[in-house]
């Protein structure tokens, strides 16, 4: 009973935050609704007994990805509340694609064979570690290559200008 209540709380918060992301007009507010949603999903992870995953969700998603998102929004926006309004044709296409996806999702939920399982909070960190270096070693190494590519891309984008070598010439003029 208590579990249902907490589930409804977190899931409801996630859904409300998701809708708010769609409906809000300011990019910065969207970013903060996204953070709310991520924290709500972390709460769901905690409820399922996946403590490690929940903590990682907060540490990496909220503390890293969302922070970067907010940085990007703030550094490149030109006004306090930049707004995004899609055009008519865009909106129709998007609605169509979204409707197809929604129908597919709902059908797959309805036709899945759900088996309620008991929540067994295990020594999650150790088990995840064993599986990462055991059966999921391949994807693990690929992800590290992906991270390397991302870091190289960021370093390339942020490279400094060609330095002006040699002496600087200061013109002796009145500055004021």
């Amino acid at each position, binding site marked *: 009973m208590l579990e249902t209540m907490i589930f409804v709380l977190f899931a409801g918060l996630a859904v409300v935050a998701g809708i708010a992301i769609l409906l809000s007009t*300011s990019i*910065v*507010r969207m970013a*903060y609704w996204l*953070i709310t949603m991520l*924290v709500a999903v972390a709460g769901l992870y905690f409820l399922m007994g996946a*403590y*490690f995953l929940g*903590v*990682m969700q*907060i*540490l990496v998603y*909220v*503390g*890293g990805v*969302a*922070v970067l998102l*907010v*940085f990007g929004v*703030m*550094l490149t926006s030109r006004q*306090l*509340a930049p707004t995004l309004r899609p055009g008519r044709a865009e909106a129709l296409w998007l609605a169509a694609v979204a409707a197809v996806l929604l129908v597919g999702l709902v059908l797959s939920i309805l036709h899945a064979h759900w088996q309620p399982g008991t929540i067994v*909070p295990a*020594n*999650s*960190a150790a088990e995840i570690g064993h599986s990462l270096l055991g059966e999921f070693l391949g994807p693990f190494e690929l992800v590290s290559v992906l991270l390397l590519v991302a870091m190289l891309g960021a370093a390339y984008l942020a490279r400094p200008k060609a330095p002006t070598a040699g002496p600087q010439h200061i013109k002796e003029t009145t500055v004021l």
Partner: protein
Amino acid sequence: MLTFERPPVEYKGLSRTIVRLATKWGGIGIPLLLRFAWGVFLAAVVVLIAFVWLVQHFINPLLPWFVRDFVVVVGLLAFVCIVAIIGIWGERKVSGRIQSRLGPMRTGAWHGWAQSLADGLKFVQKEDLIPAAADKPLFRLAPYLALVPAFCAYLAIPFGVGWVFREADVSLLFVLAMLAIEVLGVIMAGWASNSKWSLYGAMREGCQLVSYEIPMGLSLLAAVLSVGSLNLTELGEAQAGGWFAWLLFQNPFLFAAFFTYYIASLASCKRAPFDLPEGESELVAGFHTEYSGFRFVMFFFAEYAGMFAVSALATIIFLGGWGSPIGGPSSPLWFLAKSTFLVWVQMWVRWTLPRIRIDQVMHACIKYLLPFTLLLFIGSSFWQLYASPAHPLFASLARLLPYGLGTLGLLLLGLYFFGAGYGYYYRNRLVGQMARRHLPGA
């Protein structure tokens, strides 16, 4: 009306009753309380300890779990507030003494202990100013986003065996995650103030905090490797056995990891010498320039709560947690004493060193601290590998090394006390006779 007349205040109802009782009994009661202040304080401490013991042994098993949870959460909230209040007062006294002055002396009869309370009362009465062009909902939300995660970190920190709100397998990561959410509050504050100065402060802040989480985490992970668990209670229990069993002394890499963790935690708490975003002379007050009154108090509280939280982590993981160094019973008081010592060192460092510029801060993190902590991590893992029974020679060295490092630690501690004693004994000569004669109340 004359030039200045105090407008008459009319109390009604409950307030009137309270004011009447306070003035009737308070006129005698408060001075009486202050006269026996020490006695009252000690009696309160004894009563509190007795109450907690009673509750723990007799009442806890009877009550439903949510009552116990509620009481503990309220207690933790009170603890965080007390930590912040005493921290602010302590900071002012410590800064005063380092600067050869006294700090608050008047509010409250003894060394201005009530200064924080007076400041709190003052802040509560201030006008609620929000800049007209600011983003109002985000402006209001930001202080909560800074304070609530700082409080949530305390939910997983054990003060002793069994003195924890919820014991979790991943409590160390939970604390780190909560400290990572604070960044968003700071950035939100800087943005919502709609001022270029605040925005600059927020951006630098975000960079610095996020970057220094990595050396922090790596240093802690080096310690986690030796114990093999992310559970803070287990990490504390693994160091039971006195001074030489502390994780700090098991490994030269762990010894260095403690210091890198401490430096990274200074940066993550925005304390000097890394307090450029908030205290820079040209940014006035950085991201919280536009915050006044109680909202500012929340940022302030968040800072001191964060300071104590990172010191508590360092205590549990490196300094033996709640274990006594001299082999007595372990108790939360040892934990509090060690954490308070680390907080005092944070204040000491703040009032000694100048600020580092933001690009130098980032250089220091990415070019020096990060590779060094990676080396510590690798070194610690190799140490674990070779300190197993498969390599008997190395294993015997690994068993003897804690005593060597522990002796080094004792020497450092002795140096600290020697310095303090020397400064106290020669306090006339060091400051100068003339200054000592000049200082009031010295």
